[in-house]
């Protein structure tokens, strides 16, 4: 927590008065980036003052207590009774709020356990005495129909005030979603960012030796739980992307060397062929409105980017006309522009064009090579792989300025964004073994975490926040 020493006297304009008061400790929430502001005139008052915070960013402490219950009833969950579930939910929340560079969660272990009435009336003096900044409490109740009701409350301990609350009803098997929804509520209230925990990730599960690897399409929750394989591994699956409405996954399938672009429908567990060109085809991507699919196809020495209707059928529209290899393609959030990779200047670099293919221009001029660009859902950044010896995940502005590295390892590549544009996901290949794993890093580059997957994992793609 940032502690600002607000030394009064307040600066007085137009008065010789030195209104000296005792220095007071003023605690603010970690105040995020706004640019240094020049002292400006006040509205109409004579008395003005200022305080500057030059301290390093410090994480906000959040205590998360075990969720209380009205009675310890059995549930149809893998976590046990409602009391055990209360503890499991708190643990999921504490784990969610770690590693994003904003919070320092504690609990539920080692914290006092509130009774059900205390969930809505926290004992502020006790929590103040423990030096808690923020407090998360909640309850879980089992309904007769097997449904679970989960309530979540966030309190500002220093101000003795409730900041926000929400409740959800989920079927027992979806209990982790209730925990993620509570994490999302806390995260968005305290950071101002859009939520992202209650979301899913599609990726490619890899098994077998390096030269004969089986690659299957798989999905899991944003924290690695509820893992599920979608394809059998008979055909090699690559580069999955969730549709904007979350109902489908677009991916590339290789069967007997024949590449095909499929859309996998998650509701019906069926898939539809979008394109089989007879030529090497790569990197299928959605447009933000879900109406179009981009893909790259190699033909007579060049590779170009094409656009086709996501409904299947129709004539593909060619967006790039060589020279060299033009590949990938990630839309800006408003759908007006596409960022892609091209080696037309002699080495892989990042280019931007209008959605109709006009006005193509190079934006990466950092030395080395730049590959796999991906536009942030917030529109203000482009993540990409920068290759100068090692492969590193980096971000830049859409005009090609402000290069910042997020990772520094041997081989990190294929960044994709969290739905709120605050976390970048990528895969890391270990030197020697070639073992691939999925990692997340926040935009400061300081907080990395590995997602637990049952087998090797590559090509992660984040789905949108769930309703």
């Amino acid at each position, binding site marked *: 927590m940032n502690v600002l020493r607000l030394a009064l006297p307040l600066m007085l304009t137009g008065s010789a008065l030195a209104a000296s008061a005792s220095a007071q400790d003023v605690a603010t929430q970690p105040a995020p980036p706004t640019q240094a502001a020049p002292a400006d005139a006040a509205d109409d008052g004579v008395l*003005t003052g200022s305080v500057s915070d030059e301290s390093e960013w410090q994480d906000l402490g959040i205590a998360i207590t075990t969720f209380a219950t009205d009675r310890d009833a059995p549930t149809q969950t893998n976590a046990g009774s409602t009391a055990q579930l209360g503890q499991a939910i708190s643990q999921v929340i504490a784990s969610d709020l770690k590693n994003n560079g904003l919070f320092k969660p504690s609990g539920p272990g080692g914290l006092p356990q509130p009774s059900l009435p205390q969930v809505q009336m926290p004992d502020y003096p006790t929590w103040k005495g423990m030096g808690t900044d923020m407090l998360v409490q909640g309850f879980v109740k089992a309904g007769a129909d097997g449904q679970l009701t989960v309530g979540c409350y966030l309190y500002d301990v220093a101000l003795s005030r409730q900041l926000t609350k929400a409740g959800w009803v989920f079927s027992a098997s979806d209990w982790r979603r209730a925990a993620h929804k509570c994490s999302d509520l806390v995260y968005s209230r305290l950071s101002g960012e859009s939520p992202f925990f209650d979301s899913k990730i599609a990726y490619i599960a890899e098994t077998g030796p390096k030269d004969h690897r089986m690659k299957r399409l798989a999905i899991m929750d944003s924290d690695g739980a509820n893992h599920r394989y979608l394809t059998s591994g008979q055909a090699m699956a690559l580069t999955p992307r969730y549709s904007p409405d979350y109902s489908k996954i677009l991916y590339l399938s290789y069967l007997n060397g024949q590449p095909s672009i499929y859309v996998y429908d998650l509701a019906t567990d069926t898939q539809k062929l979008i394109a089989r060109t007879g030529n090497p085809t790569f990197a299928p991507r959605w447009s933000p409105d879900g109406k179009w699919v981009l893909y790259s196809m190699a033909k007579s020495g060049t590779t170009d980017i094409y656009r086709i209707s996501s409904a299947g059928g129709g004539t593909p529209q060619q967006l790039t006309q060589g020279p060299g290899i033009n590949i990938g393609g990630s839309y800006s959030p408003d759908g007006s522009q596409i960022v892609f990779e091209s080696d037309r200047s002699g080495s892989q670099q990042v280019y931007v064009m209008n959605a109709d293919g006009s006005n193509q221009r190079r934006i990466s001029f950092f030395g080395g090579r730049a590959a796999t660009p991906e536009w942030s859902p917030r529109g203000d950044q482009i993540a990409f792989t920068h290759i100068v010896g090692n492969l590193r995940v980096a971000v830049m502005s859409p005009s090609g300025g402000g290069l910042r590295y997020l990772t520094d390892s041997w081989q990190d590549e294929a960044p994709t964004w969290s739905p709120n544009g605050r976390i970048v996901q990528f895969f890391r290949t270990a030197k020697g073994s070639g073992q691939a794993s999925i990692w997340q890093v926040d935009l400061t580059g300081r907080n990395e975490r590995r997602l637990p997957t049952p087998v090797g994992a590559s090509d992660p793609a984040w789905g949108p926040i769930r309703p």
Partner: protein
Amino acid sequence: MVSFDLNRDGTLNGTPRIVRQVGVDDSNRREAAMHAKGAIRAVELAAPFDLPQEYFDTWKHVGGFLFDQRLSR
């Protein structure tokens, strides 16, 4: 920049208000909103203020108190 009014006993009279905010652009708009909330919270946590009674007319209204998060270190 925050403005607020004080009672004779140094407690806040009403909730502090944001007078203006500078340096806001598309990529920090959400953080800017949080910074504003943080500034109001800071004033609320600092109150009540121990100020000399005889100058109440001068300090009853604080017209602009600037909270500056400097990142240009």
